[in-house]
């Protein structure tokens, strides 16, 4: 081999290393970005919390806070008059908020009159967000002026007229539940239809024009961009649900139907491939025993297709979790805390879209959701691998 050729070879080889290095680099950057930005917000509260904060307003019954002098270092600023410490922070949407870091056990704020429901009492808790403190004798202390100003105002005043506070908000429980609903509902539609269609193709379809036509129609579905499915949902499925009096606009039923159509080709293809990998000898044996086709399908073909159907399910779940464009149209972009199947709501992926297109966009929360999605997708990937391992094992004859 000549010198120049050797150099050329090394060069080309290097390029292939570079090419794949580039792919790997991108994946790494993606992961690092998502994890480093998203990890900060990951907490139990993120999963269980409301997206929309709950607001309260109360008036302390007394101004006395006996023995409220503290010597410990507290986060933020401390008011010994009211026995609470406040600090500046950001909520999950990246907005400036004032949070409670400490409430003394004798604090009058533990026993406030609920100004919205006069006969009840409410109390301020650590991690609550104080939005405003109004007084009788001076201007209200607002969030925009910061925790130190707020404490200062409180210490100066003899009496608080009203203290408004809220829970943190920004939780993704609603989107999580919508995602789960959507997974359940669209699988309930797509799996039976998809599997039965796959059975038709693999077990019954005669070789003719009609079969080819049907098959090519379904293949074409794969190439349709998801945003187009969104349009289909608007023109077909939402009107259907409205006509059936299930809903008045965008809703989960329509979302599930749209999603089911998106999933159909995946389910059909995956199932059919598994059905085809089942040796014909099983079918022949069954038929030769006097079983009819229905029995053969039910007892021999389907049980063996189970890993394939599981694979299809995993792929479908992955697709549902990642879908955004279609659902923006069919399900809407409004984040809901109480999910109703006949109303609009957002899935996790659409939640990312919503917070990214909000003003200002919230990369942290978006990354946290993306983090969750990636983890789920990773698990699904492993599931798919495991299933194909099972299929191989089964067909190699070791059950």
């Amino acid at each position: 081999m000549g010198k120049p050729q050797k150099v050329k070879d090394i060069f080309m080889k290097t390029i292939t290393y570079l090419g794949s290095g580039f792919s790997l680099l991108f994946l790494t950057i993606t992961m690092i970005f998502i994890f480093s930005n998203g990890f900060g917000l990951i907490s139990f509260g993120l999963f269980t919390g409301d997206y929309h904060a709950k607001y309260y307003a109360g008036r302390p019954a007394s101004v006395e806070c006996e023995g409220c002098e503290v010597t410990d270092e507290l986060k933020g600023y401390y008011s010994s008059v009211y026995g609470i410490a406040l600090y500046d922070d950001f909520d999950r949407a990246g907005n400036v908020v004032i949070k409670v870091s400490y409430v003394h056990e004798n604090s009058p704020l533990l026993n406030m009159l609920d100004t919205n429901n006069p006969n009840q009492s409410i109390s301020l808790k650590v991690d609550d967000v104080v939005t405003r403190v109004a007084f009788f004798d001076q201007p209200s202390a607002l969030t925009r002026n910061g925790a130190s100003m707020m404490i200062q105002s409180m210490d100066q005043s003899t009496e608080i007229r009203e203290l408004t506070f809220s829970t943190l908000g920004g939780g993704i429980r609603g989107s999580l539940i919508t995602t789960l609903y959507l997974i359940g509902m669209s699988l309930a539609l797509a799996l039976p239809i998809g599997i039965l269609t796959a059975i038709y193709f693999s077990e019954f379809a005669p070789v003719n024009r009609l079969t080819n036509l049907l098959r090519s129609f379904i293949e074409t579905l794969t190439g349709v961009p998801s945003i187009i499915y969104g349009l289909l949902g608007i023109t077909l499925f939402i009107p259907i649900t409205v006509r059936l009096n299930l809903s008045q606009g965008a809703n989960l039923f329509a979302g599930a139907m749209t999603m089911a159509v998106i999933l159909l080709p995946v389910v059909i293809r995956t199932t059919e491939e598994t059905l085809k990998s089942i040796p014909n000898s099983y079918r022949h044996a069954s038929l030769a025993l006097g079983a009819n086709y229905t029995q053969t399908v039910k007892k021999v073909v389907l049980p063996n297709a189970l890993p394939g159907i599981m694979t299809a399910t995993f792929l479908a779940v992955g697709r549902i979790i990642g879908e955004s464009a279609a659902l923006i149209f069919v399900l809407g972009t409004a984040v809901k805390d109480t999910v109703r199947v006949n109303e609009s709501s957002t899935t996790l992926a659409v939640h990312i879209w919503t917070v990214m297109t909000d003003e200002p966009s919230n990369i942290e929360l978006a990354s946290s959701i993306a983090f969750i999605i990636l983890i789920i997708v990773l698990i699904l990937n492993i599931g798919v691998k495991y299933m194909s391992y099972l299929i191989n094992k089964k067909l190699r004859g070791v059950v």
Partner: protein
Amino acid sequence: DGFDSSQRPSVYTRDTTSGTRDGFMKGIGFGDAAANDSLLVDGFATRDNNAIMQAMTIDEYGIGYISLASLNDTVKGVNFNGVEPTVENVINDTYDLKRPFMYMLRANDDWESQEIKEIAHAFIAFLHSIDGGDIINDQGAVALPSNYTWESVRDTHPICQGDNSALTLRFGGSDSIQRIAEALSAEFSPRCGNVVTENDHTGSGDAFRRTQGDQKDQVVGKHIGYASRPFRGDELNTPDDTRGQLAWDAIVVIIHKDNPVDSLTAEQIKRIYSGEYETWEDVIE
């Protein structure tokens, strides 16, 4: 790396449907450009405040405008005609680059139920209260002066003592007011039997269109609509008691923090936007 004043200013503007753009162009005496991009120098037209803010955090030579409500310290807000863009200056009426925030209710005989109507009126009472004003101020707009607290008028709105969680109050209109409107809704709900609030903001024009205009009876119809500009034309052919102002909003010209410019006149801004000034040098001189 210092500021290179020989660079061309990169001009950002909202698109022609924006109320902020309308207020801004009229405020700098360039009203013709409110709905006509071709009068402006080449630049970036965007659909939202946020994009302009973001651009200004990274575009050293950028200039744009947002409402005072959206201003934060990631960018620099420029003095207008020598007056600093602050709440105080808006209240004492020295800062001129401002616009009113308006609201519109459905017509008096056009409510789907008496309850909703009463709740809506309770809401208006709330937003005019000191408590409502605090919320508006906290969001950076400038509330109109008030002399009563919500608590003192609560009993005149008995509807708010019951449980309203099955009712939905629908808000719409200007998206410049969205943050304020959402904050008001959130604080109002627990004060009025946990009424459900829905904020769907699509632009000032829809304040009228969806409460008393041609879309009021469609699914997008609203109970209360906000506009970030004075009502005009057809919109004024509505009963006076269905309209009102809730606040002033100041529009702020923003630039990158590294930009040495501190103050601009209406004329200077207009020249930048029309392309008469070609570099920052021209402005600084």
